[in-house]
């Protein structure tokens, strides 16, 4: 049985950044990755635009991953690939981790865990698409895997449901590979992806975006032959009479990402309803002592640079394992869709807390306000807030004179 100070589960951008900083903070560190290669989903994100904040240059996904792989491999971090965690047990002063690998069953002990398990895509059935079960229904990530990793074309004329970033990226990618994208359909009245992707992936390629539309049904016994699209009302329900059948050979879905927290839940970690990731303090520690969360498992980010930043913090904190004290919950006020962290541990440093948040709706001008016991203790003005775009702000919570009984709220006011 190998012993570590920090075990990072997941070898994608979050796991690698967490491992780097844990190791640099002096912890004996291991990364467990279930796939054959490190890098996570970045391996298949061949488009560029990664790393502007972290490295100050535009990199393709695999390049960004490679930079971190090089950083980690230069350190005394043990990396285990094709290693799948089957069970984690809480023990006194740490955790026992059981894995299955080609070498057999592996057992590890560790003082702290960083869960960097990423996220999965919502499926067709989860958005209640009806009809037959033909070949040709793909999530955008699966389609991306086929095109970019396997080099095979999964569609010749497709419909994309959902204007999430991967869907937009795949609209461009498939067009470049010679497929026709009939249109992108989005159930919401606003796009779900980043503005730059709407321009670079749809407008530049004359791909129509149909807002307030959804796909209700697929047709085809063996391979998909058509889909039914319909307009939706303000409660996102299809409007009778607006149905239209679009002939195509594939339906590609980009209808949301769900943080993967099955391991976290098995440890009794509490999840936050707004992020669907672990509820955490300013050190990214979950509600279970010694279990940290990072990257898209914590909170689905829009930029990998933020994933790396938060994971690096989580990894460093896991190595340091500061003793916990009394906490103040940061309550979600109006105008906020999701946010991290969810509580401030008063025993841990709180002078440079990074708050990530998304607005609940489009706001041209808004004020972010934090109040303690009804009194405003912090405010900052923002322009052009959109739910798909995560905001990052550093706040000195130590200046607010908080105590265990304080009532702390974060809210956004449109002005």
């Amino acid at each position, binding site marked *: 049985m190998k012993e570590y100070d920090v075990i990072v589960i997941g070898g994608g951008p979050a796991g690698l950044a967490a491992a780097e900083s844990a190791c640099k903070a002096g912890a004996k560190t291991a990364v467990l990755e*279930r796939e054959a290669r490190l890098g996570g989903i970045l391996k298949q994100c061949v488009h560029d635009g990664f790393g502007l904040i972290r490295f100050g240059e535009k990199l393709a996904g695999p390049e960004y991953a490679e930079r971190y792989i090089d950083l980690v491999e230069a350190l005394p971090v043990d990396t285990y690939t094709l290693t799948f965690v089957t069970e984690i047990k809480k023990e006194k002063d740490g955790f026992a981790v059981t894995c299955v690998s080609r070498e*057999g069953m592996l057992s590890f002990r560790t003082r702290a865990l960083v869960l960097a398990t990423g996220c999965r895509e919502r499926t067709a059935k989860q958005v209640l698409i*009806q009809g037959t079960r033909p070949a040709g229904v793909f*999530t955008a990530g*699966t389609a991306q895997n086929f095109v970019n990793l396997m080099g*095979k*074309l*999964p569609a*010749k004329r497709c419909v994309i449901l959902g204007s999430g970033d991967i869907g937009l990226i795949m609209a461009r990618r498939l067009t470049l590979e010679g497929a026709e994208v009939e249109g992108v359909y989005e159930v919401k009245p606003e796009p779900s992806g980043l503005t730059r992707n709407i321009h670079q992936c749809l407008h530049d390629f004359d791909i129509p975006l149909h807002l307030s539309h959804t796909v209700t049904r697929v047709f085809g016994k063996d391979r998909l032959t058509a889909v039914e699209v319909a307009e939706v009302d303000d409660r996102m329900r299809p409007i009778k009479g607006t149905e239209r059948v679009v002939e195509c050979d594939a339906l590609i879905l980009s209808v949301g990402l769900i943080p993967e927290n099955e391991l976290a839940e098995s440890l009794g970690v509490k999840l936050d309803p707004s992020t669907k990731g672990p509820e955490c303090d300013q050190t990214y520690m979950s509600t279970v002592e010694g279990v940290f969360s990072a990257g898209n498992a914590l909170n689905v980010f829009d930029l990998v640079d933020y994933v790396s930043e938060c994971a690096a913090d989580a990894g460093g904190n896991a190595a340091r394992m500061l003793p916990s004290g009394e906490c103040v919950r940061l309550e979600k006020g109006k105008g906020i869709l999701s946010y991290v962290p969810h509580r401030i541990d008063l025993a841990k440093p709180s002078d440079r807390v990074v708050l990530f948040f998304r607005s609940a709706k489009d706001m041209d001008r808004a004020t972010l306000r934090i109040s303690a016991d009804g009194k405003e203790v912090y405010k900052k003005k923002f322009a052009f807030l959109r739910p798909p775009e995560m905001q990052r702000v550093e706040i000195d919570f130590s200046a607010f004179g908080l105590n265990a009984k304080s009532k702390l709220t974060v809210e956004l006011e449109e002005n």
Partner: protein
Amino acid sequence: MNLKAIAKRVHKIAPSVKVEEHRGCVRLTGELDSWDAIYRCGVAAVSGKSLGVLNDIRLKGFVEEMKKPSLRDRALEGKRPDVLIVGGGIMGCALARELSRLDISVLLIEKANDVGTGASSRNDGCIHPGIDLHRGQLKLHYVLRGNAMYEGLCKELGCDFERWAQTFMFSTKWERYIIAPLMLLKGKLLGVPDMSFKTPAEMRELEPHPPKWLTGAVYMASAGVVSPYKVTIALAENAIENGAEVSLNTVAEGMELKDGRIVSVRTNRGTVYPKIVVNAAGAYSDVIAEMAGDRTFTIHPRKGTDLILDKKKAYYALSSFARSYFAPLPPEAREESHAAVGHTKGGGVMRTVDGNILVGPNAVEQPYREDTSTSLSDVMSIIRKQKVAAEELSAADVITYFSGVRAATYEEDFVVRKGIFTENVIETAGIQSPGITAAPAIACDVRDWVKEMLGAKDKKDFDPVRKHTPRLAGLSPKEREEYIRRDPAYGEIVCRCEEVSKGEIIDALDSPLKVCTVDGIKRRVRPGMGRCQGGFCSPLVVKIIAEHEGMREEDVLKGDEGSFILYGDTKKGGEADK
């Protein structure tokens, strides 16, 4: 039979329908423009004194297109099997295995690219106790016997079987004091074993999350659950291990009859000359019976939809349960009371052998024998309806849903008999719910008939135990370690949600009934059955199949012919040849 009374009932629904007697059956002909009316005419024509209803009323403008393989070769030409089984659902596969106990040659033909792709894979896998049946029904006879056989059968086949029991829950005092004793009495009369009454307190011991309205329940300990498609595949594999032959993508197109005997059966893969034909064609069993000159019944397809919930919600149900339908619904759920349609008692909530919760099914009459598409109204009405019993149920728990078509006859009973008008045919038709439970018992009777008809002997070296790899995720770390030492591929996890290794997938590809499709692998070892529904593993599964079979990824199919997943290489810019 009283044809006049039947005609009167039918004409009340549709005066234009012609009602006549045909070889002891009631035959209806004509044309109507409503399927509902056609169905009701069929029901009205049922008579205990006739052999059955031949409902040949056409639906105006409706043309049924049977899904057929395009394959044409002569692989089976001139074959002379002792028994030809038409249909590879659980009925056909159970028959193939039982008949492989005999010293005879058995050929099973199935038109799809795998066995068990029809109703056998599209149901909840319940091993019924039989309480909802009636004395005199073939269903009851076979369900009681089949139920008792399952434990031993699954042990031999290496399939999971759990006797998780079934409860019928009451919401009112009067049900508790009137219905419950009547049910227990009925159970005694029918011969349903191990039934008892449970108080709400006793129920809470068994089901930690019972509905608030519970006043008591009838508990049926003999009810069980299996994975119906796994049992079907396992039956076929064991049959093949014992010498039976299974020919997929093979459809019966016609039969040559002479002097009341089937001489030959024409298929897309050549003409076969069997001594005996067994009809196990499910939703098409009346069509095959007609081909064999032996039709006394009509199949009216009845669709049912089931929902599958995330394993995280497994605490909803440790067994299977349904609310008693005798009392009106609790007031808050009353508006959904219309949902009980047709012949199903409204379905329920059950735990599958794989630990998911399954909710449903409903029942909808339709003219299509193969339309298994789902609809939003069905899905939503099942959720609203079963919320009464599983109060925490929500649409967000649903990971997937599916529909199946039951092969119901108007008599609502199985047709299990030797040929009446044709000497060498045996009917195992109309095998709908509780067909999974009954099929192994039916197969035993058919085996005895065949044995007698052919004067066959038992095969000395029949081995009832199927060779297989157990599900590794269910083994202890030590046992798992041994598998991995033997082959490291057992340590390489391909499907994260269901924890399926590459080694298990390769074993499925090397199994006696080789089906190299993504769905075939999914049904055998579960990659893609979990909460991501194959999002992560489907490219890996495609790759493993392609590598192992020496084929190109674009030639790997999802299921049947035509269900290709990929075109050629991207570099060709979509110029690939599809």
